């Protein structure tokens, strides 16, 4: 168990010592101790604990498809939303949620964004996945095909003839796109 993680989780749990924690192990071997209501936002975790009778509080659930970096981002989002939820019934003002989300993604590079989409998909957090795919769609707004290819890091698998035909069909769509 990494000492840095242990210290970061202890600081966030200072409010309540009795709060139940769920241990989640990322692909690079770090163990995160996560407050139960936050961990339960991860559908894969919720069903793991709901479906397996022999798991205990000491069980460390391995998440081989999630990196430590992605996990930090995911927990930041889920913790913030848990905070918003706790303030119910005085629902968090829409603007406050939006301000959080805007600030949250501003700090994420394209690389981080894509890692988090893959992780959110794997962990099955529909709210976060909704939000992140919307951010990805926004980031390719008014961009060239080449930019979008680089953004997704995918290879063009069309033959030159196929691509030329596709582009001819949609020539009108490629005027005035951003150069970057």
């Amino acid at each position, binding site marked *: 168990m990494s000492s840095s993680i242990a210290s970061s989780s202890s600081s966030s749990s200072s409010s309540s010592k009795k709060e139940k924690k769920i241990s989640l192990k990322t692909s690079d071997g770090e163990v995160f101790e996560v407050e139960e209501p936050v961990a339960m936002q991860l559908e894969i975790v919720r069903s793991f604990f709901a479906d397996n009778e022999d798991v205990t509080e000491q069980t460390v659930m391995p998440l081989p498809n999630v990196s430590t970096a992605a996990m930090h981002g995911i927990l930041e989002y889920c913790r913030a939303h848990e905070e918003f939820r706790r303030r119910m019934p005085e629902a968090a003002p829409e603007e406050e949620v939006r301000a959080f989300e805007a600030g949250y993604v501003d700090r994420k590079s394209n690389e981080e964004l894509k890692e988090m989409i893959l992780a959110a998909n794997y962990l099955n957090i529909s709210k976060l996945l909704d939000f992140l795919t919307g951010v990805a769609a926004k980031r*390719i707004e008014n961009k060239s095909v080449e930019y979008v290819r680089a953004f997704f890091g995918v290879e063009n698998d069309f033959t030159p003839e196929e691509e030329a035909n596709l582009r001819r069909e949609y020539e009108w769509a490629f005027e005035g796109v951003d150069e970057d």
Partner: protein
Amino acid sequence: MNWSELNLDLLEEIARRIKLYDDFVAFSIVCSLCRSAAVKENFRFMSSHIPLLMLPSKGCSNSCGFFDLPKGMTRSILLPECDGKKCFSSKGWLITIDLDWNMSLLNPFSRVQIELSHMEMFENWEDLETLNMQVSFISKCALSMNLSLRADYILMVIYGGQIANLPIEFVKYKTKIYLVESVGALLVVTREAIEEETIFQIFVKYPEANLIVYTLRTIIKRATVFYPKEEERI
């Protein structure tokens, strides 16, 4: 970890959140998997997209100019199919009429064209033909829905005479078609009436008490509903 691990489901989720059609098209050309994700059904922002304004053609031309308001630029689209024709538009399609009164539906981007029955099938065609009203003959064409999205569509054409209160909106719901006039009156056309024969007589019911009956009758008399043949549907 790499985006190439993105599966089709995730790409579809992203495609569904793309707001501008241009971006949707660019996305579809990225790779074959993106192309599978960017099927028309996944473009959800059809109604909120600000329409392109079609510019009058400058004489004989193979292309048409469309002004794009959000980008403030004119796009030139290769569209020989509409050269020399009068065009109406509805739900992203053009309804074109040539000098010999042939009518077609034309998608300006995919250039899919659907021939419609010749206008001589219109009721009172002989009377109307002699009027030589090329410009004002048809007052309104409207599709019930975007053909790319659904196969079950109808085209309504209102023609002839002076119609004071043009229908401004046109909705098909279950077995009825609803027209809303510019003065706020609601016309209802029943589906049963449409399916009877080629030139459909249209019955109109009076669901609201405040209909303007004169206008209503004018429109009933002069409305023709086409049902494109099965094989013409996309």
